[in-house]
């Protein structure tokens, strides 16, 4: 049978597919392989405990002024009756 015939027969399984079945299967394999490879992409992330020197510097902290951030959060909580979204040293859940 000619390739065109086999293609037309296989079209029954994928009614509106423009891709021949062998191309579709190869595409699935390639996509699965790529997906599996991508999943391992972040496996080596993470700072070792002794490599935290840069992260410990004052200029690398999330809050430049933790005391001021805590006071601002208290004012915000008092006015809005809601808080959160910022991390500050001091205080915690339930503190008013």
């Amino acid at each position, binding site marked *: 049978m000619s390739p065109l015939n086999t293609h037309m027969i296989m079209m029954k399984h994928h009614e509106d597919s423009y891709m021949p079945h062998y191309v579709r299967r190869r595409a699935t394999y390639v996509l699965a392989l790529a997906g599996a490879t991508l999943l391992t992409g972040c496996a080596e992330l993470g700072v*070792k*405990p*002794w*490599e*935290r*020197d840069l992260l*410990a*510097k004052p200029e690398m902290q999330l809050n430049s002024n933790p005391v001021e951030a805590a006071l601002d959060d208290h004012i915000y909580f008092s006015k809005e009756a809601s808080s959160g979204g910022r991390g500050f040293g001091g205080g915690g859940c339930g503190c008013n």
Partner: protein
Amino acid sequence: MTTLKRMIGTLVATAAIGFSPLAPAAQQAPDFTLEGRHGNVSLHDFQGKVVLIDFWASWCGPCRESFPWMNAMYDKYHAQGLEIVAINVDRERALAEQFLARLPASFTVAFDPTGQVPTLYNIMGMPSSFLIDAKGEVRASHIGFHSDRVAHYEASIRQLLNE
């Protein structure tokens, strides 16, 4: 026996093997050679002595408490054969020197800016300390320094010195 009983039996047996009182083989402390304040520092230099290896850094808060304690231990037990090797893991040597200027150390200090020795010892947190006996085996390891546990630390040192 029902399948369920057999499954539970297997599970219990496996767990029992896992928790069996087989002591883990004592680990030999990996040897290293690092640059110190006066020449090179190697672990094999201290063979036959009780060695306290402490990994510290200028940015490590508890190290500000551990240094005075280590000075005290060194003064007290050095004559009995205690050696202390404090390995600095700062990438900037100047920061380590600043720390040492504020908190002088009477014990041996070594510098490892590339982090090879912490990897060798598989450090889980900073600071980390390892107590090594006279045979070179790691007998105790601690993550962090807690001032309320200094009595326990000192007791371990004393126990190893008396062996």
